[in-house]
């Protein structure tokens, strides 16, 4: 009995992970109120957690959850009926829908996809802060629990709960409609969605702190969401670009840390452990984006750079000249001093450290990267390769002072020790 209960609980969790977006989206369309729909979906989930272990898992669990959500919506409207006749009418009108839904065909598959897309656009609406969008996207689209989100971002559960409650209120106060944005707003709104997904991914990928496994899970969740989005908006090259970039980076996860959890630099990774299937998926995503014939945007170009690394059997086999070109293109579509610094690193591999050092010194002169820890570390590396050990030592020392990351500090300290002529 208790194993049945445990398996029923697992079933609830599994259904929720896969179906939550569709359930919230369907209920949002039904109630025309995103905040209410989110509450109803959570109530339906709670009812499933209580009921399924006792009565068994229903034949169509997703439809069951939607039907419960709708029933609760109608109950709520009935309670309000004395106060508001309009809602009562709406409830009667929709009760007819509900009988259809619980009986035969729960969802129209085409309409559902559009609904999920609307949900993504609501969760990433510009009226919300980035933090709020991240929490809302993970909970409503990703089906993560508040606890899981809190653990992934190392904040108290209450903080995530409050963030979500406030975000829902903000969406309601601003009367954000449940719709795909109009054409003139579409590019900006889509780019907001992509940057939220990328933010989630980076939170997992950069793994500045916290237990490694949870962070990798978060990056994988972002990848899953990017794949879903690419299916929903197949005609947007940057969506494929972002999905491709994530595929290429996640492919390296098995080789990224050693047994003790210490990071392994790209150059030192055991490339035989990279996930070939994910690399193939990345290539396919990039090709789908390219096939649209509108050129590559910032995500597509970063994906292409990641592909160059993933395609090389060793560091020396890497097509550095191509990477330099790709960074140049990236610098044109999305100018940034960080891109310039990366280009300099690629130049150092393609043409040698002297040319690269000139580029880095130009960057230093602009002052744009003051305080950016990678700048002294890159400059130190180039100086070391040029045999200018004393200057390299000064740069590594500066880089160590600027990093807050323990593991990064360890890598820099070992470089410092490795310098020729380093005393004691």
């Amino acid at each position, binding site marked *: 009995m208790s194993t049945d209960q445990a398996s029923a609980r697992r079933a609830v969790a599994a259904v929720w992970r896969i179906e939550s977006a569709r359930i919230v989206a369907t209920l949002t369309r039904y109630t025309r109120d995103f905040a209410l729909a989110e509450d109803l979906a959570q109530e339906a989930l709670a009812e499933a957690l209580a009921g399924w272990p006792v009565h068994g898992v229903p034949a169509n669990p997703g439809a069951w959850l939607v039907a419960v959500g709708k029933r609760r919506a109608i109950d709520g409207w009935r309670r309000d009926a004395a106060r508001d006749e309009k809602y009562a009418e709406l409830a009667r009108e929709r009760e007819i829908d509900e009988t259809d839904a619980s009986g035969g065909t729960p969802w129209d598959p085409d309409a559902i996809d559009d609904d999920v897309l609307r949900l993504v656009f609501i969760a990433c609406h510009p009226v919300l*802060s980035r933090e709020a969008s991240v929490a809302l996207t993970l909970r409503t689209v990703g089906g993560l629990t508040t606890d899981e989100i809190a653990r992934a971002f190392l904040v108290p559960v209450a903080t995530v709960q409050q963030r979500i409650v406030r975000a829902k*209120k903000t969406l309601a106060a601003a009367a954000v409609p449940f719709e795909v944005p109009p054409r003139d707003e579409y590019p900006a709104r889509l780019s907001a969605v992509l940057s939220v997904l990328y933010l989630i991914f980076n939170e997992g990928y950069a793994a500045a702190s916290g237990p490694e496994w949870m962070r990798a899970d978060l990056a994988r969740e972002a990848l899953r969401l990017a794949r879903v989005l690419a299916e929903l908006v197949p005609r947007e090259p940057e969506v494929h670009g972002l999905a491709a970039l994530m595929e290429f980076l996640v492919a390296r996860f098995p080789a990224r840390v050693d047994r003790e959890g210490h990071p392994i630099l790209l150059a030192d990774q055991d490339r035989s452990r990279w996930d070939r299937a994910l690399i193939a998926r990345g290539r396919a995503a990039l090709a789908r984006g390219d096939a649209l014939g509108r050129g590559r945007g910032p995500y597509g170009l970063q994906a292409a750079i990641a592909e160059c690394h993933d395609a090389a059997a060793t560091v020396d086999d890497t097509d550095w000249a191509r990477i330099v070109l790709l960074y140049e293109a990236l610098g044109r579509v999305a100018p940034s001093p960080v891109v310039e610094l990366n280009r300099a690193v690629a130049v150092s591999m393609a043409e040698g450290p002297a040319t690269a050092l000139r580029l880095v010194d130009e960057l230093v002169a602009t002052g744009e990267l003051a305080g950016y820890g990678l700048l002294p570390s890159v400059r130190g590396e180039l100086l070391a390769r040029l045999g200018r050990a004393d200057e390299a030592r000064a740069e590594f020392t500066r880089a160590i002072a600027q990093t807050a990351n323990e593991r990064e500090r360890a890598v820099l300290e070992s470089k410092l020790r490795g310098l020729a002529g380093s005393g004691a």
Partner: protein
Amino acid sequence: MSETSWRARVDAFWAEFDDSDAEGCLNRMRALVDERPAGDPEALAEWGGVHDSLGLEEEAVGPYRAALAAGLPPEHAHQVTIQLASTLRNLGRTSEALELLDGLDAPELGDAPAFFRALVLHSAGRSAEALQTALTVLAEHLPRYQRSARAYAAELA
């Protein structure tokens, strides 16, 4: 619920505002916002304001912008513009803040726009222009030396 009583209760909220109880403040304001129709510019401005005052600046930006887009009466819009510009400055988004202040024509606020403009310029690393902005308005308040003060200020940037 009449218009004046809602405004009066919002004023009362701010009179007893206590940022040591953030959750309580948010809940009370949420109830006030709930009384207004969705998309109401005044409610959005207050919803932004409560976040701003609680140090949740990132989350104040959206409601402030939505309030301005929804169409506030001019004088209220001017105040929200100043608050939004100040919030953006605190978030390091100085170019957005400057853009707002550049488009602001609010004689009823006296030197307040210039004051915030100087702050934003300073935060943007344009300290000479910041000092110039501040001294230019200060020059008008001097009992004497006004002409030379204006000229010196003009030379700064």
